């Protein structure tokens, strides 16, 4: 076995589950499989650029591949549900509906950073490597994203009432 083959095998064995899970959390199943396949193909072609800790790099490739797939899907005018950025995450959060709605209200950057930490289990330093930002900037973004998520959760925990202007009762 060639050294490159061996290295690819190691990267593949160690990360295939994580990459497929990453894609599955963010996209419909069929798109997720394509994304994972494309990610490892790029990994093979650019093996010399893959850092020793490959997973953050693979996530970055998968994220860009996912964005490309979504753009292609838009051009093909496929079903709207497949195009929503949070469609994969939304189904993943089905058993915590308040969190699902709050999470969906975040911007794409906030969602991705929080998901890398909470779902992919990356450290902030690894997340920074995946997102291409400095660890310090990533830490600041992380705390801001958490604060925004907490604010959305706070708003959602109270049902939205509408009342008669003169109503004395309180619905929440």
């Amino acid at each position, binding site marked *: 076995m060639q050294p490159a083959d061996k290295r690819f095998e190691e990267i593949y064995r160690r990360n295939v589950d994580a990459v*497929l899970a990453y894609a*599955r959390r963010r996209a419909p199943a069929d798109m997720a499989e394509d994304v994972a396949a494309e990610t490892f193909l790029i990994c093979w072609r650019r093996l010399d650029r893959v850092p020793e800790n490959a997973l953050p790099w693979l996530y970055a490739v998968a994220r860009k591949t996912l964005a490309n797939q979504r753009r292609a899907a838009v051009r093909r005018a496929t079903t709207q549900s497949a195009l929503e950025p949070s469609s994969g995450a939304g189904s993943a959060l089905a058993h*915590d509906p308040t969190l699902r709605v709050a999470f969906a209200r975040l911007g794409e950057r906030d969602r991705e950073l929080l998901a890398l*930490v909470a779902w992919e289990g990356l450290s902030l330093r690894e997340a920074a490597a995946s997102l291409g930002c400095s660890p310090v900037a990533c830490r600041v973004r992380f705390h801001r994203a958490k604060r925004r*998520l907490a604010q959305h959760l706070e708003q959602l925990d109270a049902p939205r009432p509408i009342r008669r202007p003169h109503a004395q*009762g309180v619905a*929440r």
Partner: protein
Amino acid sequence: MRHDDPLIARLAAANPVPAGTLVHVSVRERLLASVLEEPPQHRGRVRRRTLVAALVAAAVAVPAAAFADRIGQIFGLSNQGTPVATSRLPEYQDTKLAEAIREMQWPAQMQLLGERNGVTFYATRKANGEFCFAMDAVTRPLEGVSCVPPGLFPSPKRPIIGLPVGDRFNAGVLAGFAADGIARVNVVDAAGATIVSAPVADNLYAAVDVPQVQAGAIVALDGNGNVLYRQPVSG
């Protein structure tokens, strides 16, 4: 991985696709072997097809439980009521409120769940899964309609919903909807003493003439008197 931050821990707990559970080992081995056995000069487009095919096969091996909705954990609401037109809500007599209800995209039909102590209960579920409810009392100005996010009610997290949620009993009414398994809803003071108690029948409860006192919490109890849910009230 353990998360010390409660918010990140909650987000992590909502992840039903844990790493390491997706690709069946035999599929993974077969895929890798097929990739590495190809002549190097043929790698590239051929590999991509191989990877796609293998990953599609892997998807078949995904445990169904990994993606299953956790319906079993969610409390039910047995009372399905009878369909009535949404336009019968008193709010529809107020132009602005009728407009607001339409903006909330209530369906044209809702379910009349019943009447308790002069309070009439309506509910509906929107196409997006939101649970919407309304209560109407002929003799009391407690009207109001509300919608909650999909899955929030009925659920273990919120097995009751209704009036009041704050500590204000201006209308003197404790009324609402209760999930299956809830037998009684009590309002207790800060010391835990019961101020008012409403039995639940067919998922509905209503108590009127509630004294104007500072409430500490609303609690939901099962048939044995066990507290299943406690909702502190804020001043």
